[in-house]
């Protein structure tokens, strides 16, 4: 088993590093700085840290004001609050005028397994992906988190960065090349392609290993930028492997699966299976893995989806 590191810890450290290198970075939080780990930045740069209390809408609007003045605000709250509670501010005051605000959307997916439904964010990607001008990024491990924080600070325009509360096995290393809009080939394969994102990348890799034993050679592609999505890497995979399975810690509607379906249906239709949460709210659990397994995100769910897609592909040929 690979070493696991909490994505939020990596984020907190990366933000401090960024604060040292870039004096225009300001950090906003809404009474969750201990959960988001922005408390590290707050300690290091008290003059560039602002806590607005439990008031996400106000915080989002304030970020717009700061961006107009040339600062680079990193807004921090839980993902569901960023896109639902403060969603109108996000749309009207940030996305519409293309302001340079970075939204750090914490505790994505089911990673807040114990607090339950109200604190889980399982349709955030569908919401923000459909807002014009938004760049949407989902990180898969601690190294990628570090690279992403750096990259989005340099990127012009609003970015939604989906983070996680979870400790996630390391996939990449210090040399990981992170380019916004570019997918990563994690494993070569010819029978099918698993396109995955975020916390589900490690489970997808495990599924791919299991599939090898079954005689199915799957390609694995990690997509960290859901928008703008890397069309080339996905279309090539569709052409070469002729079937695709997407895997995400999100509703089956409107996330990575939706993005890939939109692309394939337009440009190169092939059998596609979407692994994700089935249009349902989840619940509280005492263990993260247990919750992922119950809500259709188990390794066996990926394996089964791959088998279905391969069958459909063979049926077509």
């Amino acid at each position, binding site marked *: 088993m690979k070493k696991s590191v909490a994505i939020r810890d990596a984020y907190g450290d990366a933000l401090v590093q960024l604060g040292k290198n870039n004096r225009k970075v300001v950090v906003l*939080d809404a*009474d969750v700085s201990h959960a988001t780990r922005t408390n590290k930045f707050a300690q290091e740069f008290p003059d560039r840290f602002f806590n607005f*209390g439990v*008031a996400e809408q106000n915080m989002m609007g304030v970020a717009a004001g700061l961006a107009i003045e040339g600062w680079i605000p990193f807004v921090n709250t839980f993902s569901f*609050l960023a896109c639902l509670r403060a969603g109108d501010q996000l749309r009207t005051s940030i996305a519409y005028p293309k302001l340079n605000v970075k939204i750090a959307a914490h505790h994505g997916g089911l990673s807040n397994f*114990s607090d339950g*439904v*109200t604190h889980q964010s399982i349709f955030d990607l569908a919401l923000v992906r459909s807002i014009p001008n938004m760049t949407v990024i989902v990180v898969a491990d601690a190294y990628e988190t570090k690279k992403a924080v750096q990259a989005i600070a340099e990127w012009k325009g609003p970015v939604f960065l989906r983070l996680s509360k979870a400790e996630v096995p390391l996939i990449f290393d210090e040399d990981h090349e992170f380019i916004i809009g570019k997918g990563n080939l994690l494993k070569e394969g010819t029978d099918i392609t698993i396109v995955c994102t975020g916390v589900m990348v490690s489970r997808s890799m495990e599924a791919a290993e299991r599939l090898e034993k079954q005689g199915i050679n799957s390609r694995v592609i990690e997509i960290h930028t859901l928008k703008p999505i890397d069309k080339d890497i996905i279309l090539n995979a569709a052409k070469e492997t002729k079937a695709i399975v997407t895997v995400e810690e999100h509703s089956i509607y409107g996330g990575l699966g939706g993005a890939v379906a939109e692309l394939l249906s337009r440009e190169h239709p092939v059998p596609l299976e979407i692994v994700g949460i089935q249009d349902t709210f989840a619940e*509280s659990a005492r263990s993260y893995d247990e919750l992922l397994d119950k809500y259709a995100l188990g390794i066996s769910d990926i394996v089964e989806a791959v088998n279905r897609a391969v069958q459909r592909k063979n049926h077509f040929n």
Partner: protein
Amino acid sequence: MSTHSLQLINQLQKRAKEFRKKIIEMIYIAQSGHPGGSLSAIDIITVLYFHHMRIDPSNPLWEDRDRFILSKGHSVPALYVVLAELGYFPEKELYSLRNINSILQGHPDMRKTPGVEMSTGSLGHGLSVGVGIAISGKLKKKDFYVYVLLGDGELDEGSVWEAAISANKYSLDNLIAICDFNKVQLDGPVDEIMPLNPLRQKWEAFGWNTIEIDGHNILEIANALDFAKEKRKGPTIIIAHTIKGKGVSYMEGKFQWHGGAPNQKQYELALKELEGEK
């Protein structure tokens, strides 16, 4: 003016003491939850359910019942212990808190837990829902009351104040809010994170009747609830001065105990202290 007997007060105090122990036990077993705000609110919830509210646990959806909305949903262990004692669900369920398939979610779920009136957990929603139910009470000419428990940190949310002006507009004298004013939110002291003072004047300016009490004094809580129900115009808020983590010395006043479970040593110490508490 008090009509509350010493006997009643003692009995409620005893209950609250037992509830505090159970809250700690539940959170210890689940290894997650929010002890601070549960312990600051338990005296208030105890007086509401065991003395004040008109309820029938054998008929949770009785039309004429008083309604209680826990807007600061993270303090739900304090509600669960009370509902279990009243028989809304079996006591043993308490120890399934936050477990997969449990009827006791990490935050209140009105579809899973008998007696829970509203699903909450995202702060700043409960008072609006309370306004809706109170308006319905008026429309249906019912005489039930609606109680909404708010956190002080929760008052940062603008939606609370949107609800507040609407309650005044519709003269909702059947709506009683209680603020668990424990002076600590998630990240630290309210005075540092987002100052609220002068809190009472804010509510008065919004047209509410106000009363300030010691939220751990059973008699004061009972009297304040009576005060709120004496015929007066419009909604009332009880600003209850409380201590976050009340009853467990190492938790008291500490934002570090907003959320989080005690380890075994801390658990045993907490139970010992609560046992000794008067």
